[in-house]
């Protein structure tokens, strides 16, 4: 199945809002860039109606190279998690699709 990409999102801004193509593309870039920048600065992003991008700090833990069996620690890291909002969850739940994702 096809996926929604930045170019289609920009296309809709052009068609529905009448932004010119360059503006539309720039806004779509900035939308994702500003979210990344906030998360990089350790600030969560809350988009009401859609969901929250949260940050979680994980401490170092023991790991193993699956090929050699050698023990190597997995370094401390920060990860992004997405918690969908009520409205998005409700809309998605109604999807009774048969196509597995």
């Amino acid at each position, binding site marked *: *199945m*096809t*996926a*929604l*990409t*930045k170019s289609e*999102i920009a296309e*809709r*801004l052009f068609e*529905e*809002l009448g*932004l010119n193509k360059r*503006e*539309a593309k*720039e*806004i779509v870039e*900035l*939308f*994702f860039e*500003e*979210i*990344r*920048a*906030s*998360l*990089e*600065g*350790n*600030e*969560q*992003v*809350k*988009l*009401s*109606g*859609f*969901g929250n*991008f949260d*940050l979680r*700090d994980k401490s170092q833990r023991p790991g193993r190279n699956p090929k050699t069996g050698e023990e190597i620690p997995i370094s*401390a*890291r*920060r*990860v*992004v*998690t*997405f918690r*969908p909002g009520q*409205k*998005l*969850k409700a*809309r*998605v*739940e*109604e*999807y009774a*699709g048969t*196509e*597995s*994702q």
Partner: protein
Amino acid sequence: MTKSELIEAIAARQAQLSLKDVELAVKTIIEHMSEALSGGERIEIRGFGSFSLHYREPRRGRNPKTGDTVELTGKYVPHFKPGKELRERVNLGLQAGL
């Protein structure tokens, strides 16, 4: 950062559009993404991540108030997988002591 702060941040970084136009654009983007997911379509944004649906099997649940058993049907839930650039930049933030 909230949606309105995101709108302000975007508006501050470009010269052509008014705050109102940026607000409309951001709402349109979010609506487009919600629409895609509720129609079972994936979203793939290079350097940011991908959104897809994960299926949850039907299960027998319990009403926490009454203790009654309820049959819960299978359903889809949104799932986000961060892309490489986002994963790396968030870790840079950690290393920078943020």
